[in-house]
């Protein structure tokens, strides 16, 4: 279907969290998460609802800062840099995000990609057009929309919107992509297309994807981290390769969850 992803050719960074905890006012979202995410791999975060997976994800691009009274303790390393002290604008350029619900801006298809690009200082018309074409080709949307780039992005189907959002993110040449249940609001066919795209991101990006779909985690991920709600907070109870988690889980809760007995 689509060609290989061409947007990024860099060397994506690893991510390491150390005793990371997040509180909303006094309520704890998750506690003491120490997780290392390998460079260029796809890591799936799984676990029941409300155990802090999405909150964990938003720590990695500091979107938590939009929520008042939100506090973080612990440390996050992006490559060998302390993520919390980086400039937030350039951090978010490096760490892109795809949300659960496709959320293109109420702009034309082309402006959806152009607007953030311009914000990051890309002003040359030819360069912009080139980046837009490459990004749309990377997500397999170019042929579908090339004749109507000026039409509203909101008139696209849900699956197309989600792919546009992915194109918008990779147009900024990030090296990490965060995805919060990127397929859960899509129909099965669109979901398959997006899932297919995610696997193509392997090696070029460090991808972290939250999913409730265990079969999907098994299909697309290299590594899996299992979150669970324990003692009033989300905890990371186990992490490892897909094979480890699904075939020889160490934790009894993981075993029960991946075989569908609980969760």
């Amino acid at each position, binding site marked *: 279907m689509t060609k290989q992803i061409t947007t990024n050719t860099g060397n994506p960074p690893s991510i390491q969290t150390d005793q990371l905890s997040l509180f909303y006012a006094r309520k704890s979202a998750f506690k003491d998460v120490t997780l290392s995410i390998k460079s260029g791999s796809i890591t799936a975060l799984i676990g029941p609802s409300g155990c802090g997976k999405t909150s964990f994800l938003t720590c990695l691009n500091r979107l938590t800062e939009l929520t008042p009274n939100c506090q973080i303790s612990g440390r996050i390393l992006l490559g060998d840099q302390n993520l919390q002290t980086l400039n937030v604008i350039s951090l978010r*350029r490096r760490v892109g995000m795809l*949300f659960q619900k496709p959320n293109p*801006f*109420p702009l034309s298809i082309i402006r959806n990609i152009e607007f*953030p690009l311009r914000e990051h200082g890309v002003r040359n018309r030819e360069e912009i057009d080139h980046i837009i074409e490459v990004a749309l080709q990377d997500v397999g949307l170019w042929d579908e929309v090339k004749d109507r780039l000026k039409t509203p992005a909101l*008139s696209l189907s849900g699956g197309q919107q989600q792919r546009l959002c992915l194109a918008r993110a990779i147009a900024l040449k990030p090296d990490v992509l965060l995805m919060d249940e990127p397929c859960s609001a899509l129909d099965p066919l669109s979901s398959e297309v997006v899932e297919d795209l995610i696997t193509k991101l392997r090696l070029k990006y460090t991808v972290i994807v939250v999913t409730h779909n265990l079969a999907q985690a098994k299909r697309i991920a290299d590594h899996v981290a299992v979150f669970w709600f324990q003692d009033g907070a989300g905890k990371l109870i186990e992490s490892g390769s897909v094979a480890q988690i699904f075939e020889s889980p160490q934790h009894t809760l993981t075993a029960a969850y991946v075989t569908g007995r609980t969760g």
Partner: protein
Amino acid sequence: MKYKTPYPELLSTAIIWAIAASVTGALLWLLSDVFWHGMSQVNWEFLTQSPSNAGREGGIAPIIVSTALIVGVCLVVSIPLGVGTAVLIAEFAANKSILGRLVRLSLDVLAGVPSIVFGLFGNAFFCKTLGMGFSILSGGLTLACMVLPILIRSTQEGFRAVPDDYRRSAAALGVSRIATLWELLLPAAMPGVAVGLLLGLGRAIAETAALIFTSGYVDRMPESLWDSGRSLSVHIYDLAMNVSGGEANAYASALVLVSFLVLINSAISWLAQRFRQSKILVV
């Protein structure tokens, strides 16, 4: 089971139509009355001449100019201040903070304060304390105070209606808050801003009580913002209440006022729509 007769539905339909018709009818009656009595008086001379014989004769040119200046001062002050304040409380102050709630509550109270109270305030503060005297400036500023709460609340509601998705996805792409505000949020909130402006301006241009105390009722052509000037509404009030034989010109002035209101409302709606469409594309 037998289906009951449709009469109750017919009755309720009739009542709803009757209510709607009477409301529309009242408005139409008012407008046609103004139009009917005023139309014969309004002509080019009326619009370009100065009033004479206490307004019974002559035109309303200085009054139109004063009105435009007063409303102009009001808008120039209230739009940036109002939209700015609304942005501050809607986008930058925490929604549930005590300060935010306090500001909202005081704005709601202010929006309901009778205009005569604003007039007294304007007289005490702008005319006397700040020494502006009876002037177009005092009147415009007093009107701005009156319009602000309406404009702020409405703009703020406009911002609240913008889905949070825009803010989150823009932030996640590393787009600055200012750019998000200007390119996405303000255009999306534009209908709220426009409604606030229309309601506020409607209140301002029709205002009499607050202006008698602040911009005064001198009917000469104003030479600067420091001159006293009579607004259309004050002129109508004066002709109708204080000048015997002034009814004809009162009606004519009312017609001019209503026409201006319609014109300005259309212009604002159009501009707001243009701004919105130049920025965002909604399906």
